[in-house]
């Protein structure tokens, strides 16, 4: 599939001249940036700037009309979402996309589906290899549950959980995939301060503990500035700035985009 996995600091993903349009509406125009192994990369911008569309392009849900995406040194144009998952790209969603009819545990277990290989024949009996495999992955998932401090809601159907916890379960489900690149779409939207602090802690721990690379969309500027190593700013589907948080904060065009021109 690809050459050796990039080492920390090398480019893991690069997006080159991406344009995406729905009919006549241009969601993204000629956007380029890169994500390095082991960093936290933030994508910010006003509402409707095309941030979520960008993530959707990266994990294959949308097919951009123009441009290249290079992941682990391999360039690709067309990719189905499940292929992205197979290559180690996981994500969470702005409007939580959990499997509402299933328990927390089962939701996170779905993250292990790609790694469960025992054939259907054994599944039917639920003994022998199938059971051993289940237990092995259950053990891994319990590790994530412990890490995210959600032991008490292990068997609760996720539809009944409060918003903040649902976000946490969704993060858990993505982590269960042991992704190389984790895309977080507004992981802290709608949370109170305490929940936000928890979530920040989890994100930093993920990077430290699992060595995961993270690209995240966030509106809370405080969070973005503290958390991320580098920031890319989109406005009306175009990239208007790219750099360290400090650089971006000082950028004229970013201030214009957020506060309006002629402030």
């Amino acid at each position, binding site marked *: 599939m690809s050459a050796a996995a990039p080492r920390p600091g090398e480019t893991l993903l690069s997006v080159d001249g991406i344009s995406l349009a*729905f009919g006549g509406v241009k969601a993204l125009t000629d956007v380029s940036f890169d994500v390095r192994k082991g960093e936290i990369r933030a994508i910010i911008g006003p509402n409707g700037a095309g941030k979520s569309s960008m993530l*959707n392009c990266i994990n294959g*849900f949308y097919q951009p009309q123009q441009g290249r995406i290079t992941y682990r040194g391999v360039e690709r144009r067309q990719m189905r979402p499940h292929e992205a998952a197979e290559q180690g790209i996981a994500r969470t*969603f702005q*409007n939580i*996309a959990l499997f509402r009819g299933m328990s927390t545990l089962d939701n996170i277990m779905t993250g292990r589906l790609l790694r469960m290989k025992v054939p259907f024949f054994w599944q039917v009996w639920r003994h022998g290899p199938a059971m051993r495999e289940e237990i092995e992955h259950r053990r891994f998932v319990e590790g994530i549950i412990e890490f995210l401090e959600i032991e008490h809601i292990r068997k609760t159907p996720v539809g009944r959980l409060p918003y903040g916890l649902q976000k946490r379960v969704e993060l858990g489900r993505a982590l269960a995939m042991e992704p190389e690149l984790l895309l977080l779409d507004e992981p802290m939207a709608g949370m109170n301060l305490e929940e936000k602090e928890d979530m920040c802690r989890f994100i930093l721990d993920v990077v430290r503990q699992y060595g995961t690379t993270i690209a995240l969309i966030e509106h809370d500027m405080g969070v973005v500035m503290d958390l991320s190593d580098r920031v890319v700013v989109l406005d009306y589907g175009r990239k208007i700035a790219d750099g360290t948080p400090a650089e971006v904060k000082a950028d004229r065009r970013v201030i214009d985009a957020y506060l309006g021109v002629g402030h």
Partner: protein
Amino acid sequence: MLYNVFVDPFVQMADMPDLLVQVLWEGTVAGVLYALIALGFVLIFKASGVFNFAQGIMVVFAALTLVGLHENGVPALLALVLTVGVMYALAWSIERVVLRPLVNQPDIILFMATFGITYLIIGLGEFIFGGRPKAMITSELFLPRGAIDVQMLGGRVTFQKLDIAAAVIAGLMVAALAVFFQRTRIGRALRAVADSHKAALSVGISLNQIWVVVWFTAGLVALVTGIMWGARSDVSFGLQIIALKALPVLILGGFTSVPGAIVGGLIIGVGEKVGEFYWGPLVGSGIESWLAYLIALAFLLFRPQGLFGDKIIERI
């Protein structure tokens, strides 16, 4: 074999054009009736997002009520008026008992609820009027009888006067509905509700009232369809299988498009009659029972949004 499938039917068509015209006309009439049922579906789907499986049964129920009342000595026109009242009562009770408690439930739940309505109506109809097939009253409702024979293309083509009347009445009704949707205040409210229940509520549209209106309108459409259809065959719940044919029509036309329902109905009606007449004998005939579904299925694979539907963009 190849000759029989790809050449012979067309040779037959060219040989006897009068027969072809006759088959096309039969198909058109069937298509108009399918379109009428589909129209009832579309009305309700547009306004409430409910895929009303019971529309076919409402057709039978309306016809059965009309005939049943007449059999019990009610004069035809009075029976007609009373049936309209019954359809209103039906719309009102469905809104009150089924729809109101299910607001904001997933579409599929509402869809399944209409299965329940279907069975309730079948049971009620049979319970009150009995399960035997009945004959539709036609002359009492001033519907023409008999046929017109036209000499054309070296042969004779027969048009039933009733079928002509059906086509004309269907056309008038569609025109009336179009005006109703485009020009009246309620029509505008209906279109708002179709977009979003919550948003419509927030601007002060009464959902309950709208739903009653729309189900009542669908009930009226059902009544007209039931009269026309009953006059062609019998009035019995056996018609519900034929009513299912409206589903492929909807797939062809799209769930929200009135012109789509009409065009789809005609395509299905003509398609299955022509298919049955010219290709049916090759495989032992009777293919009318599934040809419509197969046409729809083939169509779905290439254009899932229907003839007139908008392209679906999935979001997440």
